[in-house]
């Protein structure tokens, strides 16, 4: 089975991940994160002063953020290789990944609308900014369930040599737990749980970034093991007892 | 299947068409001047519609020779629907 599509999808991640990191720093609203307590005029002024940088960073986000989908689909393919009673977890993982990616795209559009005409009525700019931040930070359900499905799949995998090492299950659950409190960003305007707070912003995005980075190396290991298995299989198909059909 | 069933269906179809034509004369559109509600005509119309519905269920859907649970549920539906319509109308 040709593994190049998986290798390509895997290496898309660091390439676009780096671009996303650059634009994350470039976006003036992230470092330090904009506060929900800014008044409408302050927000409008922020958009008026940083229009070009906001447009640049958000356009790049718009183009590159979705490039992570192939990486998540490599994980779906690997989950389908695990010896599990059924593929239900792979399909749930796929659905959750699609939901999460769409949400970020929608949040991104709100920033771009706000920055398109900074001269708008500050009330409208405030609303667009609220929607952008809330949709960017609050909906953690998709990524949490994605990680929980992966954790359950890794934990239930009965292969002699599991596709993903067992600690990946605990790591995924840990990431899910770290990101869950960010859902409260819709409640508070101040404090650690507000959308600029330590938990809702820094912990959530930090956990997400670390999870993606670690999963890159985990998935790379899984693909290389798959390649090794196939190499053994093609050399001496007769002796291989593991009749597992690799995808 | 003997042709009695087929003939019965044709008879039922003729009766249904006849009832439909009768209701054509009772229709409001033919009355000149402002429309006026008339209880007897409406009760007649509802009765005719009940008969038509029961004929369709009985002969076309062959519920007459269907198991009891189906006969009862269709009859119950007819009674409840037309009863409610009449009750609301006369209320």
């Amino acid at each position, binding site marked *: 089975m040709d593994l190049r599509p998986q290798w390509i999808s895997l290496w898309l991640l660091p390439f676009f991940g780096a671009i996303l990191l650059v634009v994350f720093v470039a976006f003036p609203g992230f470092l330090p994160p904009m506060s929900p307590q800014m008044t409408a005029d302050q927000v409008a002024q922020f958009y008026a002063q940083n229009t070009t940088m906001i447009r640049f960073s958000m356009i790049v986000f718009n183009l590159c953020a979705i490039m992570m989908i192939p990486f998540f689909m490599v994980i779906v393919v690997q989950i389908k290789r695990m010896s599990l009673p059924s593929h239900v977890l792979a399909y749930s993982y796929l659905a959750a990944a699609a939901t999460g990616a769409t949400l970020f795209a929608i949040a991104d559009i709100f920033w771009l609308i706000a920055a398109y005409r900074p001269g708008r009525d500050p009330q409208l700019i405030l609303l667009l900014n609220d929607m952008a931040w809330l949709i960017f930070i609050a909906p953690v359900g998709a990524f949490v369930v994605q990680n929980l499905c992966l954790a359950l799949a890794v934990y239930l995998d009965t292969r002699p040599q599991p596709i993903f090492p067992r600690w990946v299950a605990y790591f995924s659950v840990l990431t899910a737990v770290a990101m869950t409190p960010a859902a409260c960003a819709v409640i508070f305007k101040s404090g650690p749980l507000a959308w600029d707070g330590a938990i809702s912003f820094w912990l959530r995005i930090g956990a997400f970034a670390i999870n993606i980075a670690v999963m890159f190396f985990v998935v790379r290991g899984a693909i290389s093991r798959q390649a090794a298995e196939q190499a053994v299989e093609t050399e001496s198909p007769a002796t291989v007892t593991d009749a597992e059909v690799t995808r | 299947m003997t042709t009695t069933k087929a003939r019965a*269906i*044709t008879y039922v179809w003729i009766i249904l068409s006849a009832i439909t034509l009768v209701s*054509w004369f009772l229709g409001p*559109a033919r009355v000149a001047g402002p429309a006026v509600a008339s209880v007897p005509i409406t009760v007649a*119309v509802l009765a005719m519609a009940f008969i038509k519905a029961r004929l369709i269920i009985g002969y076309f*859907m062959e519920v007459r020779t269907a198991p009891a649970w189906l006969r009862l549920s269709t009859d119950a*539906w007819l009674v409840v629907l037309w009863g409610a319509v009449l009750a609301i109308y006369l209320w």
Partner: protein
Amino acid sequence: MANTQTAEVNAGGTTTRAHLPSNKDMWVFVLGDLVIFSSYFIIFEIYRHQQRQTFLSAQQHLSLSIGVVNTLVLLASSWFVAQSVQLTRAGEYERAMRLTVGGGLCGVVFILLKAYEWSTKIGHGLTFGSNDFFMFYYMLTGVHLFHVALGLVFLGVVFFELRNPKLRRVSMVETGATYWHMVDLLWVVIFALMYVMR
């Protein structure tokens, strides 16, 4: 698939076995659909009771003749489909196929007549939002049209069932017929409540 229970039915003195046309699944659908439509009819009656005069004057705009012709068309299509079931049981598949096509054509005629009627009404400015009567009129006839279209799909399935010598299962023909008769039954009720009732 037609699981004929053996409940005795004394139709005219001769005890014949009860025969469930089509199958339980279709009857769940038919009975459920009848209940759902009943809720629409009862809600329509309640609104009619509240705005009696507006409904009466609006009803005058409906052309009763098209309504009657449409009813006759659907009754004819039901006759075609009922006869095709009898013929299928008798094994005369060719004639059954022709009658099913006849029933389908009547359905198409019904849809065309309804589309014409709608266009004339809209031409007179009586649209979905003009008043409560026409809201119900377009809603009820619209949902019924959806069922007629779905019925044509069912009749198409019956047609291909009859055409294929390996299939020709009576229960499948009965399923299509039962659904089509339900569509006719719903129209009879709509016709009475909307066009004729005063």
